[in-house]
């Protein structure tokens, strides 16, 4: 075991994957010499050479488009989109190409590629450095979508994603890079230095895609979250004094519906959390699934706590961010229902 921030854990995963497999290559804007604006790829170019880790022109289309070609050749490209907010120019290549290549060629050509991107707010990044576009990926057949919430998972999930034979969208909550964040923006920042999940297994391991993690057992209600919202959920639950179960989804697609349904059937109440815009967000899908699976156990409607249906504002960051107060209110509401 070793102490790592999420950045270090991601870097470690890259290093191990590149050591294990010559076909793993890394590229993106500023990822080469400089090592990425968040330093997630620092040291890779020096260690593995410019042919395996290099800077690209500022063209998200080009990054993903060439990665699709590389993957079809037989490489395993791991590409970084500097912020999730900038993935749109690559969206066509992701949706129309990466996601459908195996299907339309009946397995003749495949696309084992990982597209990493920092997501979420909490750093005063405003509308172009704060978005959480996961629902735009979960709607697309052929993609897998992963969101880690801590260094231990980030490393294991990234290694599993790189090893996956299909394209994986790997969303990294940037507010968690250096420490857990429970939404109490007015308290001092935490670091991973003292958090139990900042203690990361050394060496190669995979955290299988498609398995959720019950991070707090409880019996009164089930709180479903991923990424930063896992920490918000935990804080809100402690503060609420209600015995709520908290599940970290980790992989949005494929979703570990079994674990979720088991929990909600047991507790009879459910809240889904995310930072992304409410309408047609991923919470809608989870809610629809749960009301289908657990209809006869539900004591109250499934509640969604999410970002408002507005762009992510700058000055009003903490009015936008679905923090512990909103979650606590939701817990109270769902317990009344």
């Amino acid at each position: 075991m070793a102490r790592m921030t999420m950045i270090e854990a991601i870097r470690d995963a890259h290093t191990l994957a590149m050591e294990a497999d010559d076909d793993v290559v890394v590229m993106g804007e500023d990822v080469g010499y400089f090592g990425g604006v968040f330093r997630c790829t620092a040291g890779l170019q020096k260690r593995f050479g410019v042919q395996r880790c290099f800077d690209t022109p500022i063209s998200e289309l080009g990054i993903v488009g060439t990665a699709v070609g590389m993957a079809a050749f037989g490489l395993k490209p791991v590409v970084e989109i500097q912020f999730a907010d900038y993935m749109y120019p690559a969206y066509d290549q992701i949706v129309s190409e990466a996601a459908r290549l195996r299907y339309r060629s009946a397995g003749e050509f495949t696309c084992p590629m990982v597209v990493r991107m920092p997501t979420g707010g909490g750093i005063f990044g405003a509308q172009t450095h704060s978005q959480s576009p996961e629902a735009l990926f979960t709607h697309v057949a052929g993609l897998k979508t992963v969101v880690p919430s801590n260094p231990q998972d980030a490393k294991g999930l990234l290694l599993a994603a790189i090893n996956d034979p299909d394209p994986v969208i790997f969303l990294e909550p940037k507010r968690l890079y250096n420490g857990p964040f429970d939404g109490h923006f007015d308290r001092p920042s935490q670091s991973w230095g003292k958090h139990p999940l900042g203690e990361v297994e050394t060496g190669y391991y995979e955290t299988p895609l498609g398995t959720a993690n019950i991070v707090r057992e409880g019996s009164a209600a089930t709180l479903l979250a991923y990424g930063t919202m896992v920490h918000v959920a935990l804080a809100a639950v402690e503060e609420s004094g209600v015995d709520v179960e908290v599940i970290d989804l980790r992989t949005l697609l494929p979703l570990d519906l079994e674990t979720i349904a088991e929990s909600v059937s047991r507790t009879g109440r459910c809240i889904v959390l995310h930072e992304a815009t409410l309408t047609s967000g991923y919470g809608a899908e989870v809610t629809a699934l749960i009301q289908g699976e657990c209809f006869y156990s539900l004591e109250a409607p499934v509640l969604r706590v999410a970002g408002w249906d507005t762009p992510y504002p700058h000055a009003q960051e903490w009015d936008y961010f679905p923090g512990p107060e909103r979650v606590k209110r939701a817990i109270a509401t769902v317990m009344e229902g």
Partner: protein
Amino acid sequence: MDKETDPQLHVPEPAIRPGDTPDFSHVEIPRAGEVRRPDPGENPQEMRDLAFSIIRVLNRKGEAVGPWADSLSDEALQEGLRHMMTLRAYDARMLKAQRQGKTSFYMQHLGEEAIACAFQKALRKGDMNFPTYRQAGLLIASGYPMSDMMNQVYSNEADPVRGRQLPVFYSSKEHGFFSISGNLATQYVQAVGWAMAAAIKGERKLSVGWIGDGSTAESDFHGALVFASTYKPPVILNIVNNQWAISTFQGIARGGAGTFAARGHGFGLPALRVDGNDYLAVHAAAAWAVERARRDLGPTLIEYVTYRAGGHSTSDDPAAYRPKEEGAAWPLGDPILRLKTHLIQKGLWSEERHTQAEAEVMDGVIAAQKEAEAIGTLHSGNRPSPREMFEDVYAEMPPHLVRQRHEVGY
């Protein structure tokens, strides 16, 4: 400052529309043999002239002339003619099959046969094309079984892509033919990525991007040129300028540039412009670009000047936007006729042999068609199971898809 003017939107218009008399006198066509052939290693900055002329080998008399001649043996030329004839016969049969309701859709190559057929012969096994829907010649020239092409067009049980794709969206890794997308231009940049991968691995393989004149306006075209220009991998970027993009003439996509080949100049890429109806010119230009790639000298951009003599697809009637006689007036002629004349002129062919070859080729196509139709056509006979609809979305079927498959009863 000179006097100001009220600005206007300048909307380019083709010189001729239905009702007018076809007129291609504005198309500047140099004489065959006129364009120089620089060494493939020459500095691209020194060969800008090649983007503004047209490399031609076959002259009016059917002779092969000039520095780009002689890239092919007699046998290869005869084989080339047969490939083009086969493609044309295949098109004719499939168009008819579509009209008979045996499939939903078809796209033909009429007038453009030389380009893919000749280009393919400059490649070797291990190279990869990223084609559009109008390059079936690549498959024919690489010996892909025609009945498999038809199985794809019919979406029958033997369709290599399991009924999932629109007719003509073939895929064959073995034959260096990348799965066709349907979204224009997207594969152009993938071709560059594939070549980057070859470069990263140090494997002696090259890739070829294909795009239509109209599609050069798409973003992926730019992405491809930016990455090709930056990393200089072994890729050849082909632009098939067949004058039309559905109903839109090439002036709309080309705008103020003299030619599509000129697009390469902004990226420091060598850019050739080639007579696309001249099998020999296409092959020679391809071979030149292939040499650049194999010597790791970097990418080449090639524009083929040709004419889409048929409709865009079976859903299109070009009489609505261009004179019916325009095709006949096209000054670069018919690629099959031109190669045939060349072979006759060389004493390698005759009218009789041609008639006989036509019959043979058609027999072959009909035999393949019988084979395919015995398996099934879109609306009749064996077709891929609905079960297959759920396969290959992922390598391993995730639980939610298993569930959905069960709902359908499989």
